[in-house]
């Protein structure tokens, strides 16, 4: 009998695509079940307004989850995403309000600084061979501190200069949702169809084998963390645009929500297995759950208990799925 780890190694080349198909089916079912349940429990849940509101609320979570999928695929983790988001937002607000920059350069500076922080995490992880868990934990603190420092710990009102990103353009859908969707499609193609994506899966499966095959995994690792940072910067722009304000406390605890969404989508915390499309379903499940519970008026403790339970159940179901995948292979 083959164990799942033996089973995945030889077929690593086809694993991501196949995983996406099998996983998505189950996830879509779970999502539909939740929508049906909330529609029964609430009088106005099943409406176009609910879903368009939801779509305009989640672009930040969507792009963060894409970055986190890549990070988990290479066997890393990034706990600093929420703080980096706050830092990028703070940079944007300071550039616009403090230095009088116009929107575009301020936005680019925000995203650039987030990408820089990401590559810092990646570089330190690679240079001293420290687990990214602890490096990103340190960066979490530093980025949050820097955000407070920059903004003097005050929420800044940025105004509607960026509002076009989150104002609906057609059918109640905003450009930020469309951008996030494009990021998802692009990232899935990169992960499944490019050599770069293959290398990431291989690094997560067996880094030593990659090195012995003559490929230096280190630049790939740094690049993945830089990408995570860049996407956190993009998420910050979405948030600043939607809320018209930059909050130095933004995104605190967001990393756990992001990781939960990615893991619900079936990406392995151990690396080597993941799909961006499934991650998108994970994001939808987490967000539909939050919106639905708020709409039926569930109390705060109930919300937390149910959300936590859904995460645990999803991971349990995932163990069955990966066992079955192993057998098929």
């Amino acid at each position, binding site marked *: 009998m083959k164990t799942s780890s033996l089973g995945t190694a030889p077929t690593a080349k086809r694993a991501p695509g196949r995983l996406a198909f099998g996983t998505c089916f189950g996830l879509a079912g779970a999502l539909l079940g939740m929508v049906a349940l909330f529609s029964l429990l609430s009088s106005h*849940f099943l409406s176009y*307004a609910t879903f368009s*509101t939801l779509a305009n609320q989640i672009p930040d979570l969507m792009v963060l989850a894409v970055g986190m999928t890549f990070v988990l695929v290479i066997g890393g983790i990034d706990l600093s995403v929420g703080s980096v988001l706050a830092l990028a937002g703070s940079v944007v607000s300071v550039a616009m309000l403090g230095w009088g920059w116009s929107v575009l350069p301020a936005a680019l500076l925000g995203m650039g600084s987030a990408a820089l922080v990401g590559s810092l995490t990646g570089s330190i992880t690679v240079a001293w061979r420290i687990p990214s868990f602890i490096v990103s934990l340190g960066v979490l603190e530093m980025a949050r501190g820097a955000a*407070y420092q920059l903004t*003097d*710990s*005050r929420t800044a009102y940025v105004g509607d200069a960026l509002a076009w990103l989150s104002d609906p353009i057609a059918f109640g859908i905003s450009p930020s949702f469309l951008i996030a969707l494009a990021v998802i499609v692009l990232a899935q193609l990169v992960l499944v169809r490019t050599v770069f994506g293959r290398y990431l899966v291989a690094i997560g499966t067996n880094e030593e084998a990659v090195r012995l095959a003559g490929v230096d995994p280190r630049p790939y690792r740094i690049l993945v963390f830089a990408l995570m940072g860049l996407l956190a910067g993009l998420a910050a722009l979405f948030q600043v645009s939607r809320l018209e304000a930059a909050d130095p406390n933004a995104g605190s605890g967001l990393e756990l929500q992001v990781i939960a969404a990615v893991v619900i989508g079936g990406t392995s915390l151990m690396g080597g297995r993941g799909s961006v499309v499934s991650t998108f379903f994970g994001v939808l499940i987490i967000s539909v759950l939050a919106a639905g519970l708020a709409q039926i008026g569930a109390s705060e403790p109930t919300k937390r208990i149910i959300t936590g339970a859904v995460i645990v159940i999803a991971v349990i179901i995932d163990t069955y799925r990966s066992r079955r995948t192993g057998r098929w292979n």
Partner: protein
Amino acid sequence: MHLPSLGRIRALAVLAVLFTASVACAEDRPKVTLVMKSLANEFFLTMKDGAKAYQKEHPDDFELVSNGIKDESDTGAQIRIVEQMIVSRVDALVIAPADSKALVPVIKRAMDAGIIVINIDNRLDPGVLASKQLSVPFVGPDNRKGARLVGDYLASRLKAGDEVGIIEGVPTTTNAQQRTAGFQDAMEAAQMKVVSVQSGNWEINKGNAVASAMLNEYPNLKALLAGNDSMALGAVSAVRSAGRSGQVQVVGYDNIKAIAPMLADGRVLASADQYAARQAVFGIEAALKMLKGEKPEVDGDNVIQTPVDLVVGKQ
């Protein structure tokens, strides 16, 4: 996330004692320490800055040491700070407790050590205080009264029977409970229908999510009452993205700087100002009075009330 080892805390405590002892030799002004909740929160930062400015104006009256914790819910860290302050022999302690019950034992130790304690911001639980036979004056605003002012003003713009939603702060905090109660009082008096009360955890983004859910669930919603201005900011953007600007009124609380443009153009109808910058100063003034041996001017409830004012925007 890892706490420093006990040994390190001890070493730090010893260092703190040595340091403060050497400073204390040179000082005869009373030493007042201000222990805040999260200095990441704009509200507490404003308070601390106010206290600093006040100290600069009265440099000969007292020496000020301010401390805060990283995270508002990190009660353990705040207890450790108070322990350090006891060791460093301060004369008075002005504290915004992170938890209204858990801080009582360490405050008792401070008082047993002869330190004068004044409670600001979040009121210590009167029941727990009584069980330890402690009397700690509370200096602060009446959040319920402030919320009532905001709610009454909002009600004057609505009709009886209109549906409204309340976005609450962290439900375990007294301030959140008091503000919600004040909003409820006002809505009940004006016969409004409160259709939903949900927590936005004092945050913009969470407030936004909860406001959006309410707007979807209740198409006839006429107003959102937010327990602080951050959540009101979130509610404003929820109203905008729901395409219901002008149909749903938003009110907040605290009068933070970022709310000013919203008040100016009517996106936020009203807020309340309880003079955050002066809260710590009121506390310090009371502490200095008590250090001189005077009795503080408390009401029957052992409270020194500070002002709360309604702030309204475009008429």
